[in-house]
């Protein structure tokens, strides 16, 4: 017979140490902290995790291969020389280090574009949630309508407009449209309505605080989880933006990473072109690192932001 029934330790993640006595008689009480385990759900979660992680694993594994090895080895395991460091240094230096330039461009678009979009969304959302004015319903309808229009559909008209203004082929062509995030605004609006008690604002006003000071010193700290949520959201959107820069920017010096990687990938489909699949893969890996880092660092806020919405409904 295999393991006797009592020796299996309860799989609690909360406590590492347990008295032997309690191990003999594991408490079967189920609380919110220790919900009943479901095999089906665990398997489902496992499959989903696998589904999400497999491409990532593929990316990491293949970033360690040379161009030649990439083509003649099995995709999901290491093979040949470990070329990761070499690939990284090649990626960073290929074509006079254009990858670094693309990286900085993306950073610029994200900091100014996503940062600006978040700032505007917070201001607008707070204002709409906490102030009454005529035409609020019209604003609401416009914002909801704007959420439904995909950015892709606006890209070409925006291009024609920008090209009349002489803005195409400049960073502004990517930054200005990125500043507008109807979804972020809506999210902040809903969040501000719930998270900032009107009584608190009134108290601040009674105490003689100006509106601006009330916003920055009273409301803003309460809004932090929402801000981080919107920030992450717009960051991911801007970081991965492809179609807009594709239409707007023709000068490789202003490419974001998405366009740059695509240009490298396209080298393989040119007569006389130089396929650099290994650099495309390594570049893609380097591209996702900052996003992964941002998620890990801001995870706490992100989670509490989501939860805040869910509890209050």
């Amino acid at each position, binding site marked *: 017979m295999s393991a006797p029934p009592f020796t299996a330790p309860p799989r609690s993640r909360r406590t590492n140490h347990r008295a032997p006595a309690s191990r003999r008689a594991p408490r079967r009480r189920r609380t919110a902290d220790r919900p009943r385990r479901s095999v089906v759900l665990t398997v489902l979660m496992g499959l989903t995790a696998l589904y999400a992680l497999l491409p990532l694993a593929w990316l990491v594994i293949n970033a360690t291969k040379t*161009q*030649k090895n*990439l*083509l*003649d080895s099995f995709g999901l395991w290491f093979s040949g020389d470990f070329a990761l460091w070499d690939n990284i240094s090649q990626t960073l230096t290929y074509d006079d280090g254009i990858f670094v330039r693309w990286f900085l461009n993306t950073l610029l678009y994200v900091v100014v574009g996503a940062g600006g979009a978040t700032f505007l969304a917070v201001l607008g959302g707070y204002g709409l949630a906490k102030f009454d004015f005529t035409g609020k319903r019209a604003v609401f309808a416009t914002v909801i309508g704007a959420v439904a229009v995909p950015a892709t559909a606006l890209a*070409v008209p925006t*291009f*024609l407009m920008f*090209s*009349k203004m*002489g803005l*195409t*082929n400049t960073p502004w062509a990517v930054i200005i449209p990125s500043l507008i995030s109807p979804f972020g605004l809506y999210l902040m609006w809903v969040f501000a309505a719930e998270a900032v008690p009107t009584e608190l604002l009134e108290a601040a006003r009674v105490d003689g605080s100006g509106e601006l000071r009330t916003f920055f010193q009273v409301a803003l700290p309460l809004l932090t989880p929402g801000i981080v949520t919107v920030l992450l959201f717009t960051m991911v959107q801007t970081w991965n933006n492809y179609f807009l820069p*594709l*239409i707007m920017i*023709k*000068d*490789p010096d202003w490419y974001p990473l998405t366009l740059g990687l695509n*240009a490298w990938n*396209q*080298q*393989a*489909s*040119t*007569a*006389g*072109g*130089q*396929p650099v*699949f290994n650099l495309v893969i390594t570049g893609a890996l380097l591209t996702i690192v900052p996003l992964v880092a941002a998620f890990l660092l801001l995870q706490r806020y992100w989670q509490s932001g989501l939860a805040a919405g869910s509890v209050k409904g």
Partner: protein
Amino acid sequence: MRTMTRRAMRGVGLLCAAALSLTACGSSDDSGSDKAVSGGDLRAALREGGSITVWAWEPTLKQVVTDFQKEYPKVKVKLVNAGTGNDQYTALQNAVQAGSGVPDVAQVEYYALGQFALGKSLEDLSRYGADKFKDAYSPGPWNAVTVDDAVYALPMDSGPMALFYNKKVLDKHQIATPTTWDEYLEAARALHAADPKAYIANDTGDAGFTTSMIWQAGGTPFKTRDTNVTVDLTNDKGVVAFTKVWQKLIDEKLLAPISSWSDEWYKGLADGTIATLATGAWMPANFVSGVEGASGDWRAAALPQWKKGEEVSSENGGSSLAVMKASKNKDLAYAFNEYANHSEGVQARLEGGAFPATTADLSSPTFLEQTFPYFGGQKANEIFARSATQVPEEWSYLPYQVYANSVFNDSVGKAYVSDTKLIDGLKAWQKAAVDYGTEQGFDVNK
């Protein structure tokens, strides 16, 4: 994910189509001065200097730009890779339509030239004396850049076709190199029977390849005279010859379902899954850089024939440099174009691995004698150069071939994945081409 990207690409294609229709009706015609420009004027312009922008994806141009700027220090050339093929055409059409951001010089593939020339986006280079260059270029490329007396671009490279074959794979199964397309079909059967993982070729429906095959078989499915366009993809003799053999290859599942230029394709060329490749003579550079692992396995041979004993070839791919009508510095733009494609620049590009369109280079002993270590020391240029002289001259593309090619997969592509017959797919393609042409104001099949 793959289908997603393909769908996205198709979206871009459609967008391109939309952009095209807009420019076709709304292009502004500021032809400016049409006076002849002499060599002396050009030299003066070069001395005076200025800056031009060149949109091109051809990798060997980088060296040409460096050399050019060294020779003419006052000229600044900005080389921009605005996308490869269709991506760049979309961008170019958008820029022309918007009236800003148009480059001075643009790389345009032969099949796409008609579209831009007809849209009056390109400068006629005959006023610079380019009409005297007829004998300098091989016939296929030269026909492609000229319409009547006008010269709309200078040929940059060419793609006389050859059959590349994996000698190791064919030898292993004792299959002789096919010299006719019927033998090719036999070889395909023998190979796939001997090794179910190996295919004679990959094909998922490729407009460029299909039209090249029809071209070789003596077909002339597209004819244009002023605004009269004829599209015949049903009774044309080239189409009939091609579909007869290719339908069998498809029916018997003898073609690998791998799209050209994909990573699987490179993998297939390297590991023997794809045993032969009929394509343009620019391919060796791609073999060396992209299929490193199979060095020594591959050889080149003459393109298989539709009739035994004939010596007819075709062109596949190849591109030219055109001077944009919207350029503010056409003299410099032309001077660079001539430098890159007619004088000093050609040599630098050949050394970079490009395949020439210039007859002087195609017949020079150093070029012909060159051995290719990748092809086991074979003097492959002899085969390519001979092929360049065997291309039927009657061929022409549609004046809106970019659009037509972008919808090829919607019609003909079906024949590769369903019960649709190739000829029916081509019929559907014809219909799409006729409809679009009519919409654009052409008299199609009237």
